[in-house]
């Protein structure tokens, strides 16, 4: 049973489709890295899989409430402490305890600091620790290693590996080599949408082209 099945997916940004005909499946224990030039639609595809925007064509099949999404913004509140931030998301997602997540991302020493006092890299680590407390099997990650140093990247890779070993799966867009040798790579370049009259226009820009 696969965690995620994407078939013949087309997504669009600004009323124009960016990629089309994308199909892949992810089973527990698997990771897939999306590659492709800027503007090809990696972020859009990830947001579509996360359910934040509807697919233009094709379908995304998965169990309900399976996705934990992490993007450029970490969803942290500056006025709350590190623990409070994490505990909030754990409560919202009905996930697990915050202690192991803090330890895994090396944040235990900062647990009672307000998030406002964290550096960019530390905030990023807290944002990734949030993934662990959601208790969700499918991680959808958009450039997860931005502003992380080499040590933190390695730490993050080991967290992802542990998640995969526990039966989870990860779908990510990244340009950095995480050292996840078991991960498959999907280059989106061949799926770039061809301009032309669409049967079902993605938006105004296609309907009136």
């Amino acid at each position, binding site marked *: 049973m696969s965690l995620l099945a994407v078939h013949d997916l087309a997504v669009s940004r600004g009323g124009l489709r960016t990629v089309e005909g994308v199909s892949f499946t992810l089973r527990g224990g698997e990771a897939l890295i999306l590659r492709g030039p800027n503007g090809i639609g990696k972020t859009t595809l990830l947001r579509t899989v*996360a*359910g*934040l*925007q*509807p697919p233009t064509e094709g379908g995304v099949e998965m169990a309900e*409430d399976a*996705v*934990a*999404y992490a*993007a*450029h*913004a*970490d*969803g*942290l*509140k500056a*006025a*709350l402490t590190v623990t*409070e931030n994490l505990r*909030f*998301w754990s*409560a*919202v*997602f*009905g996930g697990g305890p915050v202690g192991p997540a803090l330890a895994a991302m090396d944040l235990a020493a900062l647990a009672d600091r307000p998030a406002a006092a964290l550096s960019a890299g530390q905030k990023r680590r807290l944002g990734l620790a*949030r993934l662990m407390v959601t208790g969700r099997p499918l991680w959808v990650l958009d450039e997860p290693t931005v502003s992380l140093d080499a040590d933190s990247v390695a730490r993050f890779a080991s967290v992802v590996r542990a998640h995969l070993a526990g039966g989870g799966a990860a779908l990510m867009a990244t340009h950095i080599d995480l050292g996840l040798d078991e991960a498959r790579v999907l280059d989106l370049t061949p799926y770039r949408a061809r301009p032309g009259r669409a049967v079902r226009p993605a938006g105004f820009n296609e309907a009136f082209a």
Partner: protein
Amino acid sequence: MIALLKRDLALAVRAGGGFGLGVAFFLILCALVPFGVGPETSALRPIAPGILWVGALLSCLLSLDRIFALDHEDGSLDLLATAPIPLEGAVAVKALAHWVTTGLPLIAAAPLFGILLHLPGQAVPWLIASLLIGTPALSMLGAFGAAITVGLRRGGLLLSLLVLPLYIPTLIFGTEIVRRGMEQGSTATPLLFLAGITAGVLALVPFAAAAALRVNLR
């Protein structure tokens, strides 16, 4: 959902000013009116219910854009949209948090400011009752306006333009209750109308607001 309410309340308390600013604005508004219309009781008393209601409505407007804007900026809104709680529920909870942090302090302060405007004592219970029933609708409609304008750079002014016309029915019945209470008339009819509007707004507007939020998250 309770966690979300707790977080929003904690944020309002810690950020400071959340409770105070609306009430301070309300006070200034009530203090300015006598300068405009004169200090005589005969001038102030007839307009006191209207001034208090318009003041509460405008003070409520001040903090509306914060309902979703901050969560949109830091990405919390994306995460809430993928959370197991329905977005409609999140909208309702955030409107409730706005009401607790803005509406309740206004209701507590309104009788005091009523003294400034020579509102007679027998009208005070009706003022409190009308605000208690009416302000939840103001917060919910405000959340709808905030959801529509959340992605816009200069949404604040537009938000007022969109939301204020929606406040008209609530304002009409709210002031009518206080005015009739002041004249010791029958308040049952406007009270029922006001309660009906609030109930309808609370039941239906979360769906419209959540739909607008989904469009803005796309």
